[in-house]
């Protein structure tokens, strides 16, 4: 034992390499499953790579940043990017607001309504996006949908106008993603000591004040996670737009980046252009996440 120890201390690189050795299996798997595909994605984005190249009908051609310059010089890309950012921001804000409000509500109601709300939320969560979108679309159908009948809107078409179509999709996105926020925040609130909340209530704080001054600061790590999650999800929304607006809306007015990538690139097997869009999305999401984490760090919060 003693000899073994002295031998290991006589080789300082071992002490240094020790942690890495233990981390190696995880790193290898992460590298294989994450880095390698990203590397491939980046590589493909530099070539002219379509189905003809994959199946060997034509030789692969190196294009440098040709795919990127084609993408950036397409005016539609920029308008789609702007629409995606705004739409994702609206979705994240609405999802967080609804999720947090219902989480607070959950702590204030009795067991039976709480169970009912939980089950309803879990039902929405478990519904596949395609099913949810189709049902939602049916509810708002101009000819057969109950919503128009109840609101007395006649045969108003919700998907014809750009904003009304985006609004309809936003409702569906919020509906299927608030349960995650609600359940997570609810779990967080449960972990907050009851005395703190009681003290705030005794001091005469309103429900809103308790949330803003007590719960929100204490739940900050959890809120950070659900915000980043929501940003990533809503930025990458595909199914809802694709199903509800018929692949991008009237004259492509409801395109978001993911649907744009599918329509412009993957549906016609232009893998290299699609890969370039993928890389751009990856960089944007990475930047958003880093900036967000940085802002939190500056406020003195450790994650």
């Amino acid at each position: 034992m003693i000899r073994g120890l002295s031998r290991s201390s006589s080789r300082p690189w071992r002490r240094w390499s020790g942690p890495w050795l233990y981390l190696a299996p995880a790193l290898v798997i992460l590298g294989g499953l994450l880095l390698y595909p990203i590397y491939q994605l980046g590589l493909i984005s530099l070539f002219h790579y379509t189905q003809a190249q994959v199946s060997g009908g034509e030789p692969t051609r190196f294009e440098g940043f040709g795919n990127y310059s084609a993408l950036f010089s397409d005016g539609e890309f920029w308008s789609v990017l702007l629409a995606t950012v705004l739409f994702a921001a609206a979705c994240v804000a609405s999802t967080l607001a609804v999720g947090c409000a219902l989480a607070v509500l959950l702590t204030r109601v009795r067991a039976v309504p709480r169970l009912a709300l939980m089950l309803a939320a879990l039902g929405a969560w478990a519904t596949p996006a395609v099913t949810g979108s189709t049902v939602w679309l049916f509810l708002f159908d101009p000819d057969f949908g109950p919503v128009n009948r109840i609101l007395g809107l006649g045969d108003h078409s919700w998907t014809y106008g750009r904003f009304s179509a985006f609004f309809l999709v936003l409702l569906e996105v919020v509906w299927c993603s608030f349960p995650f926020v609600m359940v997570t925040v609810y779990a967080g609130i449960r972990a907050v000591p009851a005395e703190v909340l009681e003290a705030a209530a005794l001091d005469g704080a309103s429900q809103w004040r308790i949330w803003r001054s007590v719960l929100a600061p204490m739940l900050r790590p959890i809120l950070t996670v659900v915000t980043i999650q929501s940003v990533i999800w809503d930025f990458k929304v595909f199914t809802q737009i694709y199903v509800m607006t018929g692949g991008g809306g009237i004259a492509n007015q409801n395109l978001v980046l993911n649907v744009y990538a599918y329509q412009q690139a993957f549906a016609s097997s232009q893998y290299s252009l699609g890969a370039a869009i993928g890389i751009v999305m990856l960089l944007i999401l990475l930047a958003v996440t880093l900036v967000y984490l940085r802002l939190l760090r500056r406020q003195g919060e450790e994650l």
Partner: protein
Amino acid sequence: MKLPSRLAALLAAAAVVTACAPQTSSNSSSEKDDKSGTLRVWLFQEVGNDPKAEVVDSVVTAFEKAHKGTKVDVEYIPVDTRAQRVKAAFNDPKSAPDVMEFGNTDTAGYVKDGGLLDVTKEFGAWNESKDTDPTAKTSVTVDGKLYGSPFYVGVRALYYRTDVFKELGLQPPKTMDELATTARKIRAAKPDLYGLVVGGAYTYGAMPFVWANGGELATGKGGDYASAIDSAAAQKGIKAYTSLFGDDNCPAAKCAGMGGNDTITAFAAGKAGMAIGGDFSHTAVEAGKVKGEYAVVPLPGVTAGSIAPAFAGGNNIGVLKSTSHRTLAVDLMEQLTSKKTQAAMFDAMGFLPTFADVRQQVAAKNPYVKPFAQTLAAGTKFVPASPAWSQIDSQLVLPTMLQEIIAGKKSVAAASEEAAKKMNSAFGSAG
């Protein structure tokens, strides 16, 4: 045991990739021409596939009897995911079929991908091929070479409600202008019906208007196409089609987003006076509310008595380049698309034969085929035989153009110019 070996494979793959180029498969044509063994066939899985399978089985049985030592393995692949299956087959020749059914607009793309075998010589030598419809033949031709044999064709014509026409004292329209006025009369008399139900995403419903006015999608030959969708004639056709969207016929808010199936659904549900539907829509309409109260005529052209050129849709059967049974596979392709098979296939599935004489025979027996046969006989059009077409199609270039005009976002001239630009860039990049 499994995980470490996979890991090792991953690491090995990571090491190999230092070569620094994305993977490609070597899809060279097989030199082998085995005269026995198993032939794999992929056909499309249709709605109600059993009658199709019966016809195919009888062809296969006869084929196996005629060629000792051969076995034919038929697989029906779902239409929705065919693109992925076919791509996978091109990428991995070992799992590819020998003979395959494909949509005729995919021909040029598959040829460029290097997947289909040139069968010009065999097709020319086949004694039945001389009766093949010229448009059907165009749909298997790329750069003057043939890459398969036509299996069936599909064309669209004008469905109309006989009860509504009788009640309002209307006659089936004789010209395209009459079509529009008739549609508006129906809508005016019966506001809960669309006059002629049209769709902003219904490209093949709009194209006859362009073609009838003398316009073209694109001009050129042999992979070198230029868009003609912004020509004066084409613009006239686009204007004729898009002017049908409005509260006096088919309100833009509802109709701009419709595709071909939506218009047929509306017609079958009794919500429209007229619709542009295919012979393949016959079953759906028969199953709807309007059964027994509709008739079909060819879509009228610009002048009285003329027929608007229709898009010749349909499917082909081809041989894959990677086959190791070249002779047998080509023979099987011919058997599957022979006159006898196509006649039986019509009885089973209602697919219109690609041979003019066979089509005449079935039209004589089935009155509903007549308007479609007339449309085919009057001359049909096909999309540009360019691999760029699949790109133009999936990038929704034409629906976007139509919808921009319908929604009042752009003028006919501006929208068609924009569409022409996008088409030309696709022709340019796909060569």
